[in-house]
């Protein structure tokens, strides 16, 4: 990161706060911490951080509510932290505007990757607008609506392309089933995960080296899909 990005960490566990503060400061981020949802919201308003790491289980309020509250007035990227077995909370947070999630315990590499992606997607428009997304042998041209694999054009149907384009434009970020279905099909179809399964299978067949062991269109059970592009 060029200028030190400012990260606000909202988590009620002092050990996690201490570890994240140490690790992120070492990576040259500016770090603020809050132990409660209320304190976190106050700090978010006062300090206008570049990114917020938000634990979903807070002592004073539901983390999903904190997220909803934040989204009422800011588009600052939010990465939520949750424990295993609370997929629904994660998905709820993502559906109301959180950018990504991590399941505790997570590795720092994962955290840094999430932070990187989230900061990139929140960057001012010109820097963000990638017109061509590259992932291994794949080249996805979002402007000219074309996909090439090893330089050769791949024929996609209109729906397949809409799906791929949505995934690729959000490369690195997790997209929930609902969000993809609402965006690519129709908000009324947001519950029809079966559409997604079928079209993802078709896309993988056309794009992945080994559709059984996909490298670019990854599945996140219970949550959604994540497109992995070159950095």
């Amino acid at each position, binding site marked *: 990161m060029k200028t030190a990005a400012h990260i606000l960490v909202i988590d009620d566990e002092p050990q996690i706060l201490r570890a994240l503060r140490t690790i992120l400061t070492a990576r040259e981020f500016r770090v603020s911490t809050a132990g409660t949802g209320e304190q976190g919201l106050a700090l978010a308003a006062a300090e206008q951080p570049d990114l917020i790491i938000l634990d979903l289980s807070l002592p004073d309020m539901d983390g999903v509510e904190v997220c909803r509250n934040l989204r009422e007035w800011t588009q600052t990227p939010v990465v939520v932290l949750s424990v295993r077995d609370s*997929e629904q909370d994660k998905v709820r947070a993502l559906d109301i505007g959180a950018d990504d999630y991590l399941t505790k315990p997570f590795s720092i590499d994962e955290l840094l990757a999430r932070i990187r992606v989230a900061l990139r997607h929140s960057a001012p428009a010109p820097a963000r607008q990638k017109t061509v997304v590259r992932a291994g042998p794949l080249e996805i041209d979002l402007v000219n609506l074309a996909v090439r694999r090893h330089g050769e054009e791949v024929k996609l149907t209109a729906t397949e392309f809409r799906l791929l384009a949505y995934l690729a434009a959000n490369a690195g970020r997790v997209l929930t089933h609902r969000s993809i279905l609402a965006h690519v*099909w129709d908000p009324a179809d947001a519950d029809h995960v079966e*559409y997604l*399964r079928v079209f993802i299978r078709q896309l993988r067949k056309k794009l992945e080296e080994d559709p059984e062991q996909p490298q670019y269109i990854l599945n996140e059970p219970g949550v959604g899909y994540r497109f992995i592009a070159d950095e």
Partner: protein
Amino acid sequence: MKVDPFFSERQQRAIHVLFAIVAALLVTALLYPMRAYLELAIIVLVYFLPVGLSAARWGMIPGIVSAIASFLLINYFFIPPYARFAVHQLQDLVVLLGFLVLSVSVSRLVGRMREGLAVAQARENETARLYELSVSLSRLAGEAEIVSSLERFTVETFLAGRVEVLPHNDAAPTSQAATDSRAGEPPPVLVASMQGSQRLLGEIRIWRGKPLSSAEERLLRAFATQGAQGLERVQLASAQARAKVLEESDRMKTSLLSSVSHELRTPLATIKAAVSSLNSNEVTLDSAARADLLQAIEEETDRLNQLVGNLLSMSRIEAGALKLQQRWNELAEIAASAVRKARAASHSHSISMDIPEELPLVWVDDVLMEQVFVNLIDNSRKYSPEGTSILIKARKRPERMWVQVSNAGPAVSEADLEQIFEKFHRVTAADQITGTGLGLSICKGIVLAHQGQIWAENLERGFAIEFTLPTDIEGKIPRIPDE
């Protein structure tokens, strides 16, 4: 339950009295044409017939009424002066009064006998009903069944309009408020409490047009006692069952705790040792050694995490709190993400998949199904030699999806094939294999929650866990858009 007798008791009595008079009138009609040929003694004798019959058939009162009616009729029709209530000859008067006294006495006697018979019959009936009730209650194992059976018996026996059996479920009797809440409806004619040996177990409330006779009241109280005994027996049985479950779960917890603390300590010991040596100023480590220790810490942390996750899943399954988030899924996709995780954790075995592309979607919870695959892969790793391969195979079978995770592990004895899914069961001695023995029982819990089946099988070469998932779930069909 409601039973409506055709006539009320009072109406019935009036009808019987009427019958008694009619009987006397009939005899009169029969004898009148022959009165010239018959002596008074014969006529009087014949009149004993309606009196005796009425008393025997309808009781004392109709009998006496019939006697008086006969007395008047004889006087009017058969004793000169005819067609007048008068007697001229002393002899006739004696006969007539003798008839009255005798016939009334006969009526009373026969009536009493009849009543005695009725009481005896009622007693016999009572005993029979009570016996039937106790036999019927003794066969029942549930409180609700006992309550409804008792209600049915009471209604039938007492011809009651309505009967309620209210069991008291806790030590406190039902509050007055509950009774008052149905104000406006008439109060029951009798409330018999069901007294158990320790406490009040409930009560029987009965509604009926006429109040209960003392005999009926006695019978109802006997019913209540039977009911109380039945309820007490059922409650005792369920308390015993609960105690057994508690005892079982206590044993389970002890076993879990010892297994878990051992399992938690092992990775903790590794982590502690590695971190403290990295932290130590006394030992100098070359970079390879440092990397090795760090790797060990990371692996052990993952193991701990998996262990905690399994414990959590197990407790959910045990508590019946496993909530399935079912949606349409591709089995291959779920298996692939489990394989991806397994490969990231270790390269000890080669893992491959054989899942045909054209398999239909399955209606499952993808997070839990992934856990099944992760646990099955993990299990295969523990029990098969390093460097061998693990294969995940899936096929469509009629009405179900069949999945097999096989490895090159040794065969398992017949007995263990069944036992393998029990909690804390480990085929090999505990020290050789790490793990709490929870993995497979979690798989079983998840597969069963999906209405599937899971079993273990020895293969020609190797060992496999197989499971099936239903593909036809309440006729659900995935909606696939054409484009």
